[in-house]
């Protein structure tokens, strides 16, 4: 399988490291993801952490956890400066699994959307 282009995963607390470890556990192919946390960081610190991760990895894609989150705000500001940078927010494990396994970004996003389901309890016969 060809190596996936690098992508940043950024979010609150241990979210990024946790979800990346979950991708590794499921697929063994989490090497393309670089986790970034906003913990303890002011907006300028989040901006700097994302810039550093992008520069070191060569990533052109940032996944973030929450639309209103400070990582998303920082990522969108970076994308304003650099229109080639893609930001996906509201990321869930199925999206990252699909990306790691070779899906293009729109398909990976769709995988995340489709995976969210309300599982009704089975009715007694």
């Amino acid at each position, binding site marked *: 399988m060809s190596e996936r282009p690098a992508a940043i995963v950024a979010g*609150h607390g241990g979210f990024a490291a946790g979800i990346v470890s979950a991708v590794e556990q499921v697929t063994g192919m989490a090497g393309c993801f670089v986790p970034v946390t906003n913990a*303890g*960081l*002011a*907006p*300028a*610190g989040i901006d700097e952490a994302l810039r550093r991760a992008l520069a070191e990895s060569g990533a052109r894609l940032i996944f973030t956890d*929450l*639309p*209103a*989150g*400070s990582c*998303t*705000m920082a990522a*969108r*500001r970076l994308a*304003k400066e650099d229109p080639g940078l893609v930001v996906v927010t509201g990321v869930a494990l199925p999206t990252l699994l699909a990306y790691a396994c070779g899906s293009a970004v729109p398909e990976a996003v769709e995988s995340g959307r489709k995976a969210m389901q309300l599982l009704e309890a089975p009715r007694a016969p």
Partner: protein
Amino acid sequence: MPLDHFRIDDRLIHGQVVVGWGQPCAIGFLVLVDDEVARSDWEQELYRMGVPPEMDVYFDSVESAARRLPEYRADRRCGMLLTGDIDTMERLVARAPDITAVTVGGIHHKAGRAARLRYVFLTPDEEARLRALAERGVTVTAQDVPSASPLSLDALLRGDGSG
């Protein structure tokens, strides 16, 4: 509960505000007070994008916020006013002396600041300015999320997050 939460938070509108406070406290509107954001349509759109449609966001400079405060206070929905730093809140309080309580919700690490709480880092000057706010009669507390107990200014400056 009308507009009674005046929060200093360097991240302004973010997850803790929209979800952490917004959902349990049924916040109906946010007032973001920042002179730079008030001049930038793009920044306003950025902040608006992260807020659910049922929550209104108003953008103000310090001057316009002080002018519109009675209007915000008359709103029957629960509201929160945010500034990104102590200086902005100080200038607002100077123009709106009926602000009697301010919460430090998040001032994060940068060079020159020392850790006081997990979510509050302060320079000596910032500490002095918080004390000055308290000396004007403003109750200054620290609280990041609603489930945490508010800490007094003394506890905050001692770095005592246990209370």
